[in-house]
């Protein structure tokens, strides 16, 4: 029993060596950079008309998904876990994508009913 626990811990330690302090700060600056770009778009480009709001909205969502990917993969360590765990968590989130698509469609229909 204790052998199994020790083996598990050892495996975990071996995997976790891949997230060094340097990598942590690198990911932080990536997140900061993406956030800065979002603010640049929201406060400068859209008001000045350089980018229309209809293009900016999908861009925000893509950038936010990028941030989400970095947080989940590196800070939450999912990238370094066994691939089975990664799929167990990520595949069900496809339901969320499905819900977004369904309700976007619905809301376009609701506009006509208002």
């Amino acid at each position, binding site marked *: 029993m204790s052998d199994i626990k020790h083996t598990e811990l050892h495996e*975990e330690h071996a995997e976790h060596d891949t997230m060094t302090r340097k990598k942590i700060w690198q990911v932080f600056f990536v997140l900061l950079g993406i956030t800065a770009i979002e603010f640049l778009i929201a406060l400068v480009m859209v008001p000045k008309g350089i980018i229309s709001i209809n293009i900016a909205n999908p861009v925000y969502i893509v950038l936010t998904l990028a941030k989400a990917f970095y947080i989940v993969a590196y800070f939450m360590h999912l990238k370094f876990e066994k691939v089975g765990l990664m799929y167990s968590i990520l595949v069900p989130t496809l339901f969320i994508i499905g819900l977004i698509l369904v*309700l976007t469609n619905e809301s376009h229909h609701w506009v006509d009913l208002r």
Partner: protein
Amino acid sequence: MSTTAVTSPIDEVKTTPWAGGRSPFSVEYGKMMMWFFLLSDAFTFSSLLIAYGALRFSATAWPAADKIFQSVPGLIEHGAPLVFVGIMTFILIVSSVTMVLGVEAGHRGARKEVAGWLIVTVIFGFMFLGCQALEWNHLFHEGFGWGKIPHDLKEFFSENVTPSATYTQQFANLFFTITGFHGFHVFTGLIINIVILINVLAGTYDRRGTYGMVEKVGLYWHFVDLVWVFVFTFFYLV
């Protein structure tokens, strides 16, 4: 009996990941369960945010975010759109970084370093909650609330949009509900972090031989940050 008898396949002890006796994903039980809880919480928050999106994009008019959120409570009254929420986002992202640095120190068994990073994380967490409280207070003063909206709505809509009381109320209700639910998660996350911090200082995890508990609460804290990233995008940017 022959000592070199070959065991039949059915009697062999299997050591493949799914053969039993250990975690198939090579993670401890608590960590796997934390991941599944976070998945369920992601569904809850997604439902709320997607409902917001569906209502907002089916509305004939909707208050403009940069008209409602343009103050820094206590410092600037008007004309600073998105500045305060930018500060809040920065605070939470930094607290996520300090949390992961604490987890990394835990892998090296550096007890004092873990405690240090956890303390910084908790401080930043309280700063975020304080900012959220200031934001709510500012909005309450302007007349927003659950079931309440200001008298004069013109200043919260874009120039060529007719103000609508119905949709302003929907916005206010959803804003306070979703940010409140998120703030509740931040608060519980802080309580949990403090409990773990006390355990770190007491040497519980040195005795146990693993700082896995710090890693598990770290997952919860990152999830809280992740949700904020989405809330920020859908309420303040889009």
